[in-house]
């Protein structure tokens, strides 16, 4: 019919190739595929600040984004489903928060809120399953894959198999650092990072890499164990007094790297400091739910919560760094009123109680940590060193030459790595499914993405096998929800099994009234871009 409006030409925003070849390739393939539906989509690859600025800050603008490649990466605390389930899709975060796609569903909001306060794991899983299914039905996002994380180490320098895999994170984790056994006279673990390290500061969540360091220099009360659940660490034990009260018993005999003992006072300070959102803005969300703390004596600290929260152990007790009050207290006091906050602290000493002590950091070169032999769980290596190598080619080169003996940050082509492993023969390669995932986001605020059928068609047009095999070169598993199969407990079985294909997509569109004229897709009769 004559009055149907043509679907406009659109851009698929993506990051430049160097930032990750696989998603870049995926974007190219997706654009090529979707164009077969009669769309006109070009890939617009730009650096992160530009892409994020458009997608995030300009989400409400008149002429904003349509499609964008996006990713969520793995972090230990993401082992709990709450963060993704709530923050990514709850309508309260649609305007300014992480729900940048503008997904608004009261049914979903209800589920998201409910899983948060449901303390019983099985009941909670039910709710999380429902949430996953609802998102799939609504085609909220076009989930693509959960990448496989690639790590490798030199098994002439480390005992083969002494690395420990943590669910959704791979072998790059504290458990490996503590457990890995150096052999043949080697004493150092030399890790590598593609990103630049921005800060090593217990009050600052800066770059992703930085947390690898803060995590092992500073202890936390709990730690996420290899199985993905929080387990006691600096806390000897914990005990839920009721749904809003928890008692934590501090391990005795711990000391700071400067030799002073770790006390309950330090623990309370560590959680109180971030409550000042101006002083410690990055950590303050994690302690928001704490109403008060009490020193109960006998190394016991009681946390009184404002509301019950299933994720409290993971996102608060296993998140907040324990810091010595005698050292950081005065520093923070001196910062008050200066306009600067705790994130600007440039320390001469970095004092924690963790299994590794800070030794040296030469910016854009390397960080050196040393084993804390007095720790209750001392590492077997002597030093933990991380080289900052900004490009994957050089990083791989150094790994092959043994200048790096543990490949911790490999974002390159997995096939290349596989080749090298094969050639070398002395490399242990470990692949793990990521907690994080890669997806293509659609802007629900704008036509045609406000139409669930259109979203479904777009999502189902993308052959996930092609994504896995072509874009990720087999180095990924298909994704169907925001919960990775790595979190086997919360992952909804069968959510990744759905039909895809260009014909299916065409049929969905046709059924919904879309037409193709002169090779271009047109809206159903009466639907127009502008509302």
């Amino acid at each position, binding site marked *: 019919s004559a009055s149907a409006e043509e679907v406009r030409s659109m851009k698929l925003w993506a990051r430049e190739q160097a930032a990750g070849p696989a998603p870049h390739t995926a974007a190219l393939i997706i654009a090529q595929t979707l164009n077969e539906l009669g769309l006109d989509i070009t890939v617009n690859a*730009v*650096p*992160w*600040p*530009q892409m*994020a*600025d458009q997608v*995030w*800050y300009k989400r409400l603008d008149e002429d904003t984004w349509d499609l964008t490649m996006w990713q*969520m990466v793995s972090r230990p605390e993401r082992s709990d489903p709450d*963060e993704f389930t709530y*923050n*990514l899709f709850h309508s309260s975060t649609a305007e*300014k*928060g*992480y729900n940048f796609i503008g997904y608004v569903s009261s049914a979903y909001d209800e589920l998201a809120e409910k899983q948060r306060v449901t303390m019983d794991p099985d009941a909670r899983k039910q709710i999380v399953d429902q949430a996953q299914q609802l998102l799939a039905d609504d085609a909220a996002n076009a989930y693509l894959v959960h990448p496989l994380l690639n790590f490798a180490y030199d098994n002439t320098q480390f005992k083969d198999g002494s690395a420990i895999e943590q669910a959704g994170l791979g072998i790059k984790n504290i458990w490996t650092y503590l457990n890995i056994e150096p052999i043949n006279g080697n004493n*150092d673990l*030399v890790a590598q990072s593609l990103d*630049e390290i*921005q*800060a090593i*500061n217990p009050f*600052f*969540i*800066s*770059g992703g890499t930085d947390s690898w360091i803060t995590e092992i220099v500073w202890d936390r009360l709990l730690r996420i164990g290899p199985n993905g659940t929080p387990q006691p660490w600096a806390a000897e034990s914990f005990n839920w007094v009721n749904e809003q009260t928890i008692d934590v018993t501090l391990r005795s005999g711990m000391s700071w790297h400067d030799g002073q003992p770790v006390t309950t006072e330090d623990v309370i300070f560590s959680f109180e400091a971030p409550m000042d*959102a*101006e002083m410690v*803005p*990055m950590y*303050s*969300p*994690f302690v928001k739910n704490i109403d008060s703390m009490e020193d109960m004596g006998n190394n016991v600290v009681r946390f009184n919560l404002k509301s019950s929260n299933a994720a409290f152990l993971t996102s608060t007790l296993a998140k907040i760094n324990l810091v010595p009050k005698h050292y950081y207290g005065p520093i923070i006091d001196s910062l008050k009123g200066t*306009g*600067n*906050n705790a*994130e*600007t602290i*440039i320390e001469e000493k970095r004092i924690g109680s963790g299994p590794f002590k800070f030794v*040296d950091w*030469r*910016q*854009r*070169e*390397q960080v*050196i940590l040393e084993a804390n032999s007095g720790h209750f769980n001392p590492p077997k290596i002597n*030093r933990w*060193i991380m*080289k*900052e*190598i*900004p*490009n994957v*080619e*050089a990083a791989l*080169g*150094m790994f092959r*030459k043994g*200048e*790096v003996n543990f490949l911790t940050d490999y974002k390159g082509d997995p096939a290349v790595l596989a080749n090298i492993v094969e050639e070398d023969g002395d490399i242990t390669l470990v692949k793990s499914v990521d907690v994080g995932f890669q997806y293509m986001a659609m802007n629900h605020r704008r036509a045609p993405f406000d139409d669930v059928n259109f979203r479904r068609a777009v999502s189902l047009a993308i052959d996930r096998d092609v994504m896995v095999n072509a874009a990720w070169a087999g180095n990924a598993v298909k994704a169907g929800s925001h919960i990775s199969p790595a979190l086997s407990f919360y992952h909804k079985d069968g959510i990744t099994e759905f039909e895809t294909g260009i014909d299916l997509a065409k049929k969905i569109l046709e059924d919904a009234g879309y037409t193709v004229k002169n090779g271009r897709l047109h809206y159903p009769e009466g639907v127009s871009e502008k509302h």
Partner: protein
Amino acid sequence: MFDFWSIVRRFLYMLFVLWIVATIIFFMFRLMPGSPLTAFIGTTFTDEQHDLLVKRFGLDKSLFEQYTLFIVNTLKGDFGLSFTYNKPVINMIIEALPNSIILTLFSLVIAYIFGVIAGAYLAWKRATFIEGFSIPIVLTTRSAPEFWLGMIALAFFSFQLDIFPSGGTSAAGVIYETTLSKLTSLHFYYHLILPSLVLALYLQGLPLLLMRSNMLEVMQEDFVTMSKMKGLSSWRIVIYHAARNALLPVATAFTLGVGFAFGGNVVIETVFSWPGLGRLLVFAVSSSDYPLAQGAFIFLTAILILMNFLADLLYLFLDPRVSYKTKN
């Protein structure tokens, strides 16, 4: 010879140019697409955090206010805090600067020593078979993108032959107590060799060709003919008379080259993971870290301008025709 005030005047003029450049750069960054705040976006990134950042970065102020603040602070030598590192920009620059300086100087010195000698030699071998194939080779090395040469050098010398490290300034775990101890350690120079050779390969063309054509020109001068008439040996003529005169412009080109190579090292620093000023700038620009990018850029500019200035002074020292006024 020349008086103090003349240098002061010239120096003030340099500051003026620097100010203009700083202003241009300031506004370019502010009007650039993309936001420095995107680096902080995360699932737990809240509105309050956002507002705090805006305030701390001073982005809530008007552009004009930001500008005056920037100029005033810069005059005080304060380049502000890096958005991403939360560190004073000046500290970061000072940390990166020696690496860049050493890389640049080292490669320039290699390039110029080689270029001058080879240039003089080729001038001597004019119209021979040697010249016939040398010149195209020199022109070709000048035409190759530095990073490409770097890639090939890495693939070959480091990955294949394994004689040089593949990047950085030191091997894992080596701790330098001070910058000085770093710059004096052999280990550092071992890492320096490959990048500086690649850079030198690229840079040697200019002095070589310059030296050659100067030599050819000088060899035509009457005073060289006169030296022949005086019965002086050809060695003495070539070295003492021709080369000395031909070197004048090469020496100035060297100074200018320092400033130029400094800015051009960005790509080599990237290929060889060299923690220098150029890479810092690239990082800062791509992450919209305005203060850091501004600081790095202004430093690069200052070095360039300073080198231009030094080139003038150097010429003054080297060429008696400008430094010694005619007596009346």
